[in-house]
Structure formats: structure tokens, C-alpha cells
């Protein structure tokens, strides 16, 4: 993969363009014409003032936002996690604090919500919906971080299949997070605390595991998101290792990305009106890395630089196999394309 561009800018304002701990994106494509990106701002724990969804074009033309806690009760979020469009451009958003999936149209108008059963296993724990994926038949897959299972739902929210359980064996989970469905209808789950990706068919039959715990190539540390391109290559947000790994469908690593951010259009616009900061920035070496012992790891190194991934929480492909990596701690999206 090679870098294409960087999108976004950081802002801690509760309204307007600018990202605030972005957690996921969904891409709405009008094939051959335009791509609109919907970005979920998780925002800060204490105030949630910036919690909302913003949407804008691939070219960074701002369109609007919705779901702000300052808005009406039905639409607002508490702890939103992931996004997915169905085949009618209805945007589905999981909220792990309220145990529901909220559904909006592409203009951000709230449509309805699906309440998830908080006690389906009778242990008194909450569902905690994390990842979401929707297949070509509009069946919804949602992962539960607390119950360690996957539910398959009809578009109306009726459970048609449920599988999983707590553990590290095949088909078991430990705090699963992001998911994706490939073109053949198979489901991929970021099995977060088990440091692996699991693949299932649409009926929940276990097919395969990718990766294991570790810091080496082909190993993962707390993977948060997975995406599959048209060639069935698998991108994994190797979140705890501050990198993204691309695997072929058999599991061989094709690429390891650590981030190559450039200045986005919005960032250039800001620096154009803050010239002294641009000049000081140009004189700085933002790749320098000589850290004391207690700060020598990927997380701290990422915090000291600007080009590297910091908190690569979500991976998504568009129809041209371009990869979008959303970083919550750098408040931006880095876009990559397949090497020719």
C-alpha cells in the first residue's frame, strides 16, 4: 500500500468541522461520482461535548453533523462505537452505554433504534454492543463486548442467530470489537482481548483464525477493527501495536503500515492563517525519537511524532480498494491505495 492523503483536523469544539477522538467511519459512495465520509467522534469521557457524527466529502468539503448530546433525546449518543451502512444508505451506529443500535438516514435524520437484549445469557451482564457489520441481505451482525458473543439480526432487530461465549478457543471471544463481511458473505471479527481475527460463515460456523498475541509481524496486540477488500485481503487495525497489517486471505502478511501522515487540506488552511506556527513547525524535526527507557514503546513513540499512527482504531475499504485508517489519538484519517 502507498499513502494517498490525510483527511481531517483536530478540534475540541462541540460543533463544526474538526475531529475529536474519532472512533470509526462509514463511506457512502455514489459510484463514479462522489464519496461521502461519515465519521464518529467518540469525544472526551467527562463532558461528551463533542460526541457526534460529522459528514464531509472525500475532498474535505464539510457537509454537516448530527447526534450531538445537545440535540434531542432520541438522536444523541452516549458511548458510540462503530458505524455501518445498510443497502438503503441507512446508517447504523452502536452505543455500548445504552445497549442499542441507532439508525439514521444519510442526511442524519434519526429513524429508529434497535434495543439489544442485555441479559440474553442470564448472567445479569449488559450487552455492550461494539462492532457492527451488515451483509448484502441487510442482516445485521453485532458483537457484544460484555457477553462475548455475536448476534445476527434481521433489519427489524429480531435475533436469528447467536454464537460465541467467553474464552480463547475457536468460536469463543474475549471482548470482541470491529467486524466486516466480505463479498462472499463471510464474517470477520476482531477478537480484541484474544489478539486475533476470527472468520465465520453467515450462520456462525467457525472457519479460520488469523494471528496470535505479540509484537512481531503477523502477530497482533488488541486488534480493534478488520476490513476485507474486493480481493479478500484482510486489513487489521493492530491497535495495541500502533500499526495496521494487511494479510492475504490465507493469512500471510502482505504489508505492515505504521503511518505516513501528511498535512490535510483543513490543516493547510489553518496553517495558512497561522504563519509563525507553520514556520516553527517547518524548523522542527517531528520524527526525532530518543526517548527515556520508561517511554520506549510504540504507544509513546507515536505520541512523540506526527506522521505515525497513534490509536489506529478503525480500518475501512472503499470500492476501489483504498484503505482508510482512522486514528483516535491523532484525530484524522490516513488513506492508502494498493501499490501498482
Amino acid at each position, binding site marked *: 500500500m502507498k499513502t494517498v492523503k490525510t483527511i481531517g483536523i483536530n478540534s*475540541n469544539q462541540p460543533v463544526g468541522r474538526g475531529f475529536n477522538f474519532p472512533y470509526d467511519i462509514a463511506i457512502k459512495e455514489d459510484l463514479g461520482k462522489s464519496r461521502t465520509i461519515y465519521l464518529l467522534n467518540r469525544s472526551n469521557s467527562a463532558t461528551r461535548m463533542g460526541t457526534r457524527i460529522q459528514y464531509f466529502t472525500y475532498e474535505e468539503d464539510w457537509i454537516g453533523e448530527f447526534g450531538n448530546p445537545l440535540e434531542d433525546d432520541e438522536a444523541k449518543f452516549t458511548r458510540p462505537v462503530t458505524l455501518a451502512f445498510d443497502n438503503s444508505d441507512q446508517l447504523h451506529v452502536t452505543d455500548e452505554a445504552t445497549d442499542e443500535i441507532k439508525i439514521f438516514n444519510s442526511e442524519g435524520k434519526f429513524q429508529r433504534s434497535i434495543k439489544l437484549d442485555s441479559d440474553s445469557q442470564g448472567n445479569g451482564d449488559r450487552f455492550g454492543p461494539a462492532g457492527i457489520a451488515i451483509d448484502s441481505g441487510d442482516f445485521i451482525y453485532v458483537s457484544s463486548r460484555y457477553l462475548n458473543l455475536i448476534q445476527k439480526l434481521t433489519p427489524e432487530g429480531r435475533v436469528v442467530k447467536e454464537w460465541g461465549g467467553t474464552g480463547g478457543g475457536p468460536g469463543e471471544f474475549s471482548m470482541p470489537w470491529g467486524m466486516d463481511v466480505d463479498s462472499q458473505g463471510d464474517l470477520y471479527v476482531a477478537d480484541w482481548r484474544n489478539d486475533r481475527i476470527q472468520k465465520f460463515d453467515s450462520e456462525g460456523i467457525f472457519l479460520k483464525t488469523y494471528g496470535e498475541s505479540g509484537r512481531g509481524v503477523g502477530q497482533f496486540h488488541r486488534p480493534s477493527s478488520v476490513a476485507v477488500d474486493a480481493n479478500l485481503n484482510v486489513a487489521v487495525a493492530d491497535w495495541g501495536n500502533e500499526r495496521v497489517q494487511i494479510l492475504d486471505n490465507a493469512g500471510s502478511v502482505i504489508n505492515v503500515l505504521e503511518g505516513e501522515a501528511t498535512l490535510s487540506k483543513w490543516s493547510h488552511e489553518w496553517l495558512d492563517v497561522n504563519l509563525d*506556527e507553520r514556520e*516553527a513547525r517547518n524548523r522542527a524535526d517531528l520524527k526525532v525519537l530518543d526517548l527515556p527507557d520508561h517511554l520506549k514503546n510504540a504507544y509513546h513513540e507515536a*505520541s512523540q511524532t506526527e506522521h505515525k499512527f497513534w490509536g489506529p482504531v478503525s480500518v475501512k475499504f472503499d470500492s476501489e480498494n483504498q484503505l482508510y485508517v482512522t486514528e483516535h489519538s491523532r484525530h484524522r484519517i490516513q488513506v492508502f491505495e494498493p501499490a501498482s
Partner: protein
Amino acid sequence: MPESQIELIAHLARRAGFGATREELEEYGKIGYEGTVDKLLETSSPQWMSEYLIRRYHPDESSMLAGLSGLEAWLYRMITTDAPLLEKMTLFWHGIFATGYPKVLNAKPLSDQIRMFKKYAMGDFRDLLVEMARDPAMIIWLDNQQNHKDSINENFGRELLELFSMGVGNYTEDDVKECARAFTGWTIGNCEYMELRSARDSDWPYGRISWHYEFDAQDHDDGEKEFLGRKGNFNGEDIVEIICEQEATARFIARHIYHFFVADEPPVPQWPYQPPRDPEAINQIVQAYFDSNYDIKSVMKFVFNSDFFKSEDCWYEKVKSPAELVTGVMRLTESVDRPQYEHSSRQLRMQYMGQTLSNPPSVEGWDGGTTWIDTGALVERMNFASEELGKLETPGSKELFSKIAFEGNGEVEADRIIDICLKHLGTINVKDDTRSKLVDYASENGVIRVIDQEIDDVGKEKIAGVVKLIASTPEFQRA
């Protein structure tokens, strides 16, 4: 083990940690008092709630945008750690080397400073002082990035002597200047850009970039200096070596240790004018400091095993800081086993009680002692402890109910209820008149009856009422 030994270990647990449950105390009892001291001092592989787990639920707590939100992660760590003394030592050094967000304006370097304290908290005091001088947040906090070879800024040099090591009155103004000269060139990487961004509280374009220490040899004054009667081409490390050799340093640190771990002393600015509460104890700590070649862990071992520490005269002689109170209460509830939506408010409650970590009132830190108590803060402290400990559904409350139910079917005497509750809340010794009021309260609210080893909801509410009252007693609010 006799109850008196459990009570002594409970005193140790309040001071070297955040208190302990009865079950923890009984476990400690099996290895005895000195064994418990050794166990608490063993902090080489502490376990606490995974930072990845925290980061997944609160991504802001490991980043830099949301001012003080990294402190919520520290609060999680204090509540869930199995090495409470390490957290107490970190709080101790944070109170002395107090560094505040309002000037630093970058949360990650402040979190990194707390990480640094944890690494060096119980090692050689020289190492801690050198790392503190290299700490990026400290450099910005005390302007050492503006301390240049051809124009010194003495701010860091002065505070190193006045507040961090020797105390006022033990050095001259010339010593301050020579000290500052030795630390010229101790700065942060990309200083110009980082300073500009920090001064503007600027988040752009992709959030704050963290800081790292950099030594600028071109800007360092390596000429001869005269410091505390010694001459040489001293650099910062040499200055720290000389400082640590001083008896004034040993006395200053000894009094801080006594103030934080043994019994409240007056605020630091009064120290030159008021003798220590227990001069002989200070002498003994000074001796331990030199005998151990400035090893803080050895000094703490000496303090915890000393007669002056174990003496009942100093039990409950310290007012818990808000950080200690909030942490101790949440540990007793045993309810924080995962990141929680409600967690952010706990940090805010601490703030309402008068303490925001990494935001001290001044470079002198918090005065501590009775200054924690004013009418507003006291109400907030009692309300917080009562609300959290009075919740019926926490694992801590359920454990208490099962202990009372274990008494057997029938009515449980009020006196016995009070006994069980006081033990459950960390083996607290209350004064006789306090105890008698607690018994009266338990009696007046009707009997608590156990049927089939269960207590009904009304009975549980009554027990929770007793717990809330105990949480408001002076003994619970003190350590």
C-alpha cells in the same frame, strides 16, 4: 493472630496504601506485620486494570486533548492496583515535585511524569532528582527551557534547592545562580515549536505532540562553578550529587516522609519556624537515609517498622487527602472491575473536595493535614463515602450482608452489627462515644433479622445506613 496485630496491620495498610478489606488484612496477618511491610515494599511487577482496557473505553484518557483526563486513568490504577504503596509513593513525590496543567497545557507529559515517578519512586534519591530535572513537564513548568548559557533563568535551580531538596535557609543566592548555570542546556526537543503551541494551548493540526528531554550541549555552561562550598565544572548530575550529600536535604525529605506517612506536620512554609512534631523520629529517618546511601525503599522500610510509626499515638492522626479517600472508598466497594461511564465523575468529586491531581494550588503542592477540611469539603467527603459505600448492589456490600447473615438465623444484635461493619470497612477503631452513637443508631432503626441465611431488603437498607454513618466518622475520614 490477635486482633491487636490485625489492627496494627490495618494502620499500616491505611498509610502504606489506601486501607484494606478485612479479608486482605487477614491474609496479611498470616505473614505478620514485618512480612506485610516487605510485601508492600515489593513493587517490581505491579498489576492493575489494563491500560488498553481503559484506553478502549476512554480513548481520551491516554491522549493529550482533554486536559486532565489522564488523571482518570491514574485513579483507575490506584483503585485496582495490587501494589498500593507504589501509588502512595507516586502521590508523595507528586505532592513535592508538584507540576500543574495550567502552565504545562499538555496532558501527556504530565502523565509521563507520573510514570517516571512510579519508576524511580522507591529507588536512589539521586536518580529521582536527575530524572525529575530531565522531565519535560518539569522543564516547562519551571522555565528551564529558558535557562541559557548566556542568560540564566534561575527558576528551576531555586526550586530544586528550596522546594525539592534542602529547604529555604540552607543555601545562598549565589548557590541558586551556580545551580541554574549547571542546568543550562537541559531542555525539550523541538523546543521552539512546542513552546509556541503550548503557549497558545493549540491543538492543531493533529492534536498535541508529546515532549522529550534533550540536552543542548551548545547552550550548556560547562565553566567552573562554586556550589555549597565546592568548586568544579559541575553539570546537573554533579549538583544533584552534592545536594544529596547535605544533611539539610536528608532532614527536609525526612520531614516530608513523616508528614505524609506518619502524622500531619504544619505546611512546608512554616517548617523553618516550627520544629518537627517528633524531632527524634526525624533524626532516625535522616540516619536511615545516609545509612542506605539515599535509598528510598530502605528508608520506607525503616519508617514502617519503627516504633514511632507503629505507636497508637499516631493512628488516625492524618486527614486522608481527597485522592486517598476516593481511592480507598472505591477499593472497599470492590465495584471497579472494568472501565465505567460513572468514573469521570469520581475525579470531579475529588476536585470538589479540594484536590485535582496535576493541578496543585502552587509549586509548593498541597498543604495537606487539616487544610483538607472546610465545611464544603467535609460535606462532599462524607457524601461521597456514604453514597458509594451505601450502594446495596456492589460486591463490597454483598460481602458485608453475607457476613451478617452468617451470624445465623434470628435477630442480630445492634452491637454485633457495628462490630461487623467496622471490621468490614477496614478494621476501624472508633472512640467509645462514637461507637455508642453508632449502636444507638442501629438500635433505633429496628432489628435486623436473618431468615434462611438471608437478609431482606429492609434489613439491607438499615445496614447500609450504618455503613453510611461510619463513613462520616472522623476515624474513617482519617488514616
